[in-house]
C-alpha cells in the first residue's frame, strides 16, 4: 500500500495533494452554467443564510451561482484543525473558506491557499490593499507580499464602562464624550475605576478582562497591555510576521515588564512587590487570571463591574435596552465605550507603531481552496467580487454585526443607524486605526502557549516579571531557531 497524492509518508510534499496550482490566473468571467460553491463559514452565517444570500445578489452575484454555506464550528481552534485536514488532504471542497485572521498566515506559509494576487484581477486586489483596514490586510499576506485572503470583517476590542456608575463618582457626559475618541492612560484609568468603586460600594468589581492561560491572553489582552506600554514581542510592528529566527526577541524589555507590573498592580494592589508606580491598585479581581471572554463578561453584564474589556459582540449585549425579552439585562445608553487605555504615547514608545490606545486585531478573511476545480474557482471569484461591494459590507454589519472592513464605511450614515453598536462607531474606529495584529507566523501556535503561560504566571505572582520574561525569552528564542 502506498499513499497517493505524493509520498507524504516519505517526508515529501504530501501536504498539497490535488492540483495545487494556486498561482495561475483564474478565469474571471462570469460562468454561464448553473454552479454551486460551498463556503465553509460558521453557524451565525448559516443562521442568516437567506438574508446574506439576498445581500450577495444585491451586490451583483450572478443568478446562476449559488453559495452553499457549510456551518463549521464557531470555535476557532476546531475550525483551524478542520481546515488543516481538509487542505492538506487536498480536498476540492469547500471552495471558499472563512479563516481567522489569527491563523491565516500559517496556511499561506504552507501553500495551502489560492494566491489572490496572482489569480485575481489586480483591481480587486488593489481595492483590498488600498481601502481595507491595513492591519487586517497584513494578516492575509504571505512573506512574498502577495495577498491570499480578502478580509471579511475586522474585530477590535474596546473598553466598556458603566456611565451610571461613573456619574456617581462625579464624571459627566462631557468626560464620556472625550473618552470615546481620546483614550486615557492606565494611570488615569485605574484611578477613575477606583473612584467609581468607592462611589459604588455595592458593585463588586472594578475592571474585568481576560487573563486566563489561553490564546486570548497572548494574542490580545496582553498584546494590548504590552503594546500600549510601547513594548513588543519581536521588536516592533515590522517584525510581526517574520522573519522567523531572524528578528529580535524583546519580551524581557522594560515596556513589557511594565505592562506586567501594571497588571499586577491592578490585581494585587500597589503594595505588590512588583507594583508599577502610578497605577492605582486592586481594581481587578484575581479571578481575571482564570477568565476568558464569557466568564469575564458575566459580572459586567450582571451589573457587578464598572469597566470591562471585550470584543464588539459584547457591546451588542451590554448596550441593549433592558427589556422583558432579555430579562432586563443590558444598560442601553448607560453603556459607555472607549478605546483601550494606553501606557505610553506613541512618541514615548520604544518601537515604531506601538504605544497609544492599541486594540488587538481579530476578524476573519475569505480565502480560496487552491484544490477546487477551475469551474468552481471561476464562480468563487464572483463571490469575492460581490463581497467587496460596500453595500454588501454594510448589509452584513446590519445582518450579523460584521464590522465593515473598510474604515471609511464606519463613517457612513447607514452604519451609524445600526442599533446599539452604531452608537459606538467612534470608539471602534479609533480601535481599528490602532489595531495591532498578533505576531502570527508558522511558529506562533507554539509561542502563544508559552507567552500565555509565562505572562499568567507573572500576573499571578508565581514568578517575578523579570524571571518570567527571561524564561519566556529563551523559550521563544528556541522556537524561533527551530524554524529558522
Amino acid at each position, binding site marked *: *500500500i*502506498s*499513499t*497517493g*497524492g505524493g509520498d*507524504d*509518508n516519505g517526508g515529501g510534499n504530501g501536504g498539497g*495533494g490535488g492540483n495545487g496550482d494556486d498561482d495561475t490566473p483564474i478565469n474571471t468571467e462570469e460562468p454561464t452554467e448553473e454552479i454551486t460553491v460551498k463556503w*465553509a463559514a*460558521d*453557524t*451565525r452565517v448559516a*443562521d442568516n443564510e437567506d438574508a446574506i444570500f439576498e445581500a450577495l445578489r444585491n451586490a451583483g452575484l450572478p443568478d446562476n451561482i449559488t453559495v452553499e454555506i*457549510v*456551518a*463549521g*464550528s*464557531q*470555535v*476557532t481552534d*476546531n475550525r483551524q*484543525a*478542520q481546515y488543516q*485536514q481538509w487542505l492538506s*488532504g*487536498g*480536498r476540492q471542497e*469547500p471552495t471558499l473558506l472563512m479563516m481567522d485572521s489569527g491563523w491565516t498566515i500559517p496556511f499561506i506559509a504552507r501553500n495551502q491557499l489560492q494566491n489572490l494576487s496572482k489569480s485575481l484581477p489586480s483591481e480587486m486586489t488593489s481595492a483590498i490593499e488600498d481601502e481595507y483596514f491595513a492591519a487586517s490586510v497584513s494578516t492575509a499576506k504571505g512573506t512574498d507580499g502577495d495577498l491570499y485572503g480578502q478580509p471579511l470583517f475586522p474585530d477590535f476590542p474596546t473598553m466598556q464602562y458603566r456611565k451610571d456608575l461613573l456619574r456617581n463618582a462625579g464624571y459627566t457626559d462631557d468626560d464620556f464624550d472625550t473618552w470615546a475618541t481620546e483614550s486615557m492612560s492606565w494611570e488615569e484609568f485605574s484611578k477613575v475605576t477606583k473612584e467609581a468603586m468607592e462611589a459604588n460600594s455595592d458593585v463588586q468589581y472594578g475592571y474585568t478582562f481576560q487573563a486566563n492561560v489561553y490564546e486570548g491572553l497572548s494574542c490580545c489582552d496582553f498584546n494590548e497591555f504590552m503594546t500600549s506600554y510601547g513594548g513588543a514581542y519581536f521588536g516592533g510592528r515590522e517584525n510581526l510576521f517574520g522573519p522567523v529566527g531572524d528578528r529580535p526577541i524583546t519580551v524581557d524589555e522594560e515596556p513589557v515588564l511594565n505592562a506586567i507590573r501594571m497588571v499586577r498592580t491592578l490585581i494585587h494592589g500597589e503594595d505588590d512587590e512588583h507594583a508599577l508606580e502610578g497605577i492605582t491598585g486592586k481594581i481587578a479581581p484575581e479571578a481575571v487570571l482564570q477568565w476568558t*471572554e*464569557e466568564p469575564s*463578561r*458575566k*459580572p459586567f*453584564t*450582571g451589573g*457587578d463591574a464598572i469597566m470591562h474589556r*471585550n*470584543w464588539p*459582540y*459584547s457591546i451588542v*449585549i451590554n448596550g441593549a435596552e433592558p427589556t422583558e425579552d*432579555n*430579562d432586563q*439585562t443590558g444598560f442601553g445608553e448607560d453603556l459607555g465605550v472607549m478605546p483601550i487605555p494606553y501606557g505610553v504615547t506613541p512618541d514615548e514608545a520604544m518601537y515604531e507603531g506601538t504605544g497609544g490606545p492599541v486594540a488587538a486585531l481579530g476578524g476573519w478573511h475569505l480565502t480560496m481552496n487552491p484544490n477546487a476545480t477551475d469551474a468552481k474557482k471561476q464562480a468563487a471569484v464572483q463571490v469575492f467580487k460581490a463581497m467587496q461591494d460596500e453595500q454588501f459590507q454594510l448589509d452584513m454589519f446590519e445582518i450579523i454585526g460584521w464590522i465593515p472592513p473598510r474604515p471609511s464605511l464606519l463613517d457612513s450614515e447607514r452604519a451609524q443607524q445600526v442599533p446599539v453598536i452604531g452608537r459606538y462607531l467612534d470608539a471602534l474606529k479609533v480601535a481599528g486605526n490602532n489595531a495591532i495584529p498578533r505576531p502570527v507566523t508558522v511558529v506562533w501556535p507554539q509561542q502563544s502557549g508559552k507567552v500565555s503561560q509565562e505572562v499568567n504566571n507573572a500576573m499571578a505572582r508565581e514568578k517575578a516579571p523579570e524571571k518570567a520574561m527571561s524564561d519566556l525569552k529563551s523559550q521563544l528564542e528556541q522556537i524561533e531557531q527551530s524554524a529558522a
Partner: protein
Amino acid sequence: MSSETSGVGVGADDAEMKRGPLGRWVDKAIKNPDRVYRAMFYVATVFFLVTTLFPFYWLLVLALTPNRLITNMGLLPKGFQPEVFITMFERVPFHLFMFNSFVLGISTTVIVLLIASLAGYVFGRLRFPGKSILMLGILAISYFPPAAFLIPLFELFTGNTALSIGAVTISSPDLFNTPAPMVLPFSALFLPLSIFILTTFYGQIPDGLEDAARVEGTTRLGALFRVIVPLSAPGVATAGVLTFIAVYNEFFFSFLMNNGEASSWAPIVAGILKYQGQFDTPFNLMAAASIVGVLPVAVLVIIAQERIVSGLTAGALKE
C-alpha cells in the same frame, strides 16, 4: 442520623427507658447485623445518588436560567425559562445530530459486538499458539492517542490512499461526510475494550454447556451465539453500552471526518458545539442540549440494564 448525638454518652447500663433512639438502634443492630448493612446500604446509596446527580441538577439549573443571568449562581435557578428546551431546537437542529449519533453509535456497537464476540470467544475459550502476543498486540492499539491515527486515516477516507497491484492502482473511495470514516475508526478503537471484556466473560462459561450445544448439533459458532453469548448477557450488554456511549461522546474523529453539518453525519458533540459562538457561550442552551442529549442514553441504559443486571437468574452458571 440527626439522633446521633442524643444517643451517644448514654450509659449502656441505663435502663431501656433512658436510651436514646440511637442506643436502641445500636442494641437492635447488635442483635440483627442485617440492620447495620441496611443502614450502611442506604447511607451509601444516598451518598452516591447525591454525588452523581448533583451535577445534573446543576445542569438543569443552568438550563433554566436565562443565559444573561448566569452569574453568581447559587443552588437555585435564577429565573425560570423552560422554553429553552424549545429554543435549543430552533437554534440548532439538535434532533438531527442526535439521530446521527444514534446511527453511528448503533452501527459501531453492532460491528464491535460481532467482531469482538468472535475474538473474545477465541481468546477466552481456545488455546492456540500466538494467543498472548495477539492479545497484547490488540491491546497495544489502545495505547495510542487518537491523533496518532488521524492523518493516514484522513488520507484513506478522502480517497488519497492508493493500492498498487502491479499496473493497476485502486485508490480508496472518498467517504468524507459519510458515516463510514467515523464508524470504522470507532470500531477499531473501541474494539480492544470489548474484546477484553468479552474474553473474560466468555472464558467463565463452563465448558459443559458449550459441549452440550455442540453435541446437540451446533457448530462452535452456533454454540457461541446460542449459548455463550446469551449466558454472558451482562458482559455483552455492558460492552455494548460502553461502546455505544463512547461513540456517542467521541469528539476527535467525529469532528474531523465530516464538515460538522447534521446532513454530513456529524454527531451530537458537533451539535452541542454549534451553540457556541466565537466568544459568547450560551451556557443555558448547551446545558439544555446536553440534558436532551443524555436522555436517550438514559433510556438505553434502562433497556440494557435489565440485561446487564438481571440477565442471569440465580444459579445460572451451574455446571
